[in-house]
């Protein structure tokens, strides 16, 4: 296929592939890009994970800090996710405060943490009304080639599973917190949701794991998040063309299988780094 065609008529170019039930990068419509995972490589973070889905690269680092619990929930801690799309990861992002896409992604992750119940906020409380943990989950995109949300969810989950927090006690005399950096405890990750994203072409053709180009040419995108109990944790479809219930059902079942694949990957990688610790 001539390179000129690709740049001049990108949509037609893609359609010509989709007609043949395949995609310009050689994938089938329902095929994910190679997903790789690297856990715990950032030693300054309390937990970290680097995820690559094809070219898309996302890193998540967890930093825990101490704060007074919220006044309306004195027995809870905080989880503060933030998705950053720095100008480094693509020429489409500008420096400065987070743009629309980054804001939407942050909100999506924040909602997911609550709806999927990944971490019990009560577990983050150290002493009710006095002290609790704040988990800052900073997710940064290093290379943006589509399907940001899937990568973010995997990175977040793997980083949380990797995270270790030091033991904190409250000195009875001084009433001050004392941190013991030698004694580390893992977080209790209760649920393990995984997301799968889809792009819709010409209102009918559904492909999984779209690249950045596919995202921009598609008429709609959908992200489905399920957990290990095959429950639907989140369904995110920001506008775009409609989708039949049937197609949606297909997406959900694809998401369930994707969940199993990714879970297996995370567990394998976690197991492989365990002995070193």
């Amino acid at each position, binding site marked *: 296929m001539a390179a000129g065609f690709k740049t001049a008529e990108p949509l037609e170019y893609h359609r010509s592939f989709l007609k043949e039930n395949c995609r310009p990068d050689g994938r089938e419509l329902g095929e994910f890009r190679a997903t790789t995972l690297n856990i715990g490589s950032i030693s300054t973070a309390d937990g970290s994970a680097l995820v690559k889905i094809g*070219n898309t690269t996302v890193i998540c680092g967890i930093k825990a800090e101490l704060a007074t619990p919220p006044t309306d929930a004195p027995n809870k801690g905080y989880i503060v996710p933030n998705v950053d799309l720095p100008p480094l990861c693509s020429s489409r992002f500008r420096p400065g405060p987070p743009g629309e896409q980054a804001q939407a992604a942050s*909100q999506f992750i924040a909602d997911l943490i609550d709806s999927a119940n990944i971490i019990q906020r009560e577990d983050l409380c150290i002493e009710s009304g006095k002290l609790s943990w704040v988990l800052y989950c900073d997710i940064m995109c290093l290379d943006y080639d589509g399907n940001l949300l899937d990568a973010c969810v995997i990175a977040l989950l793997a980083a949380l599973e990797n995270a270790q927090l030091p033991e904190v006690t409250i000195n009875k005399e001084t009433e001050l917190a004392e*941190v013991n950096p030698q004694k580390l405890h893992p977080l209790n990750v209760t649920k393990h949701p995984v997301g799968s994203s889809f792009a819709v072409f010409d209102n009918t053709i559904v492909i999984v794991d779209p690249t950045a180009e596919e995202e921009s040419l598609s008429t709609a995108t959908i992200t489905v998040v399920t957990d290990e109990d095959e429950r639907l944790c989140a369904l995110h479809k920001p506008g775009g063309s409609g989708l039949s219930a049937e197609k949606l059902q297909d997406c959900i079942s694809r998401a369930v299988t994707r969940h199993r694949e990714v879970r297996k990957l995370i567990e394998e990688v976690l197991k492989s780094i365990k002995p070193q610790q």
Partner: protein
Amino acid sequence: MPVDTRRVRAPEESQCPLLFVPLLPRGPLRTVAQPEKARVDGRQRSQVDVRPVFARCGLVTQAKGSAYMEAGKTKVLCAVYGPRESERKDDTDMKAGRLVCDFRYAPFSCPKRGTWIQGSEERDAAQALQEALRPGLCLHRYPRAQVEVNVLVLEHDGSVLAHAVTCASMALVDAGVEMYDLVLGCALRQDGDSYLLDPTLAEESGGHATQPEDNQGGVTVALLPSLGQVSGLHADGELRDESVSAAVRACMEGCHRLYPVVRRALVYAARRKAAPPGDSLET
């Protein structure tokens, strides 16, 4: 403080747990090794002893050029965009292109969590980076254009600016920006009469706690290796002047140690690019 509506709400104030570790020596997390002894990681004092370096080009596929570098635990990623049309039209000097540098620490890259908003330290580093790189670039080749260099520190374990310079110059080469020479960086920590080359974070912040003797400080040098010119020099602390000169010499030597590693990575990247698509890369 106005509420930032563009981000998920965080508690107004939270503190780094390290502040609550009892009997924490002031400032640093670990103390610097005794002057006469070897360094914590086994390297020698007052020797041009750099940490093992891993360098690779072309990791950010969306960028015109990119590079990733690890030196010990310090991890730096750099992406280059452009040359593209300059954003600042009012600039009087339109005959040469502009070099725009951005320097960020990932929030989790330091022992204490960083904020989302760019701090003054990052702005200073961006400025220093820009001044160190500019002499190496043929900017007059790109009138009315700007070249953007974005550096992201993923993990900070000392000598960050120095490695950022090296990493950025690799990314510039990867982007095909015309250059007179590479720009390599090397840092040094002066500790009394001895020095620690390519210091770790603990070594960088060490002296502030144990302060008996003077002559404490940090030096960062950027070098154009084949031209033998110094394009960047930063020193802070309190140094005797002869230490400044000696430190510059040691850092230059350190840069030359890096040179073959960086060259190998660049040659590898160039070969990979030159190879026709589909060919096996693992040769």
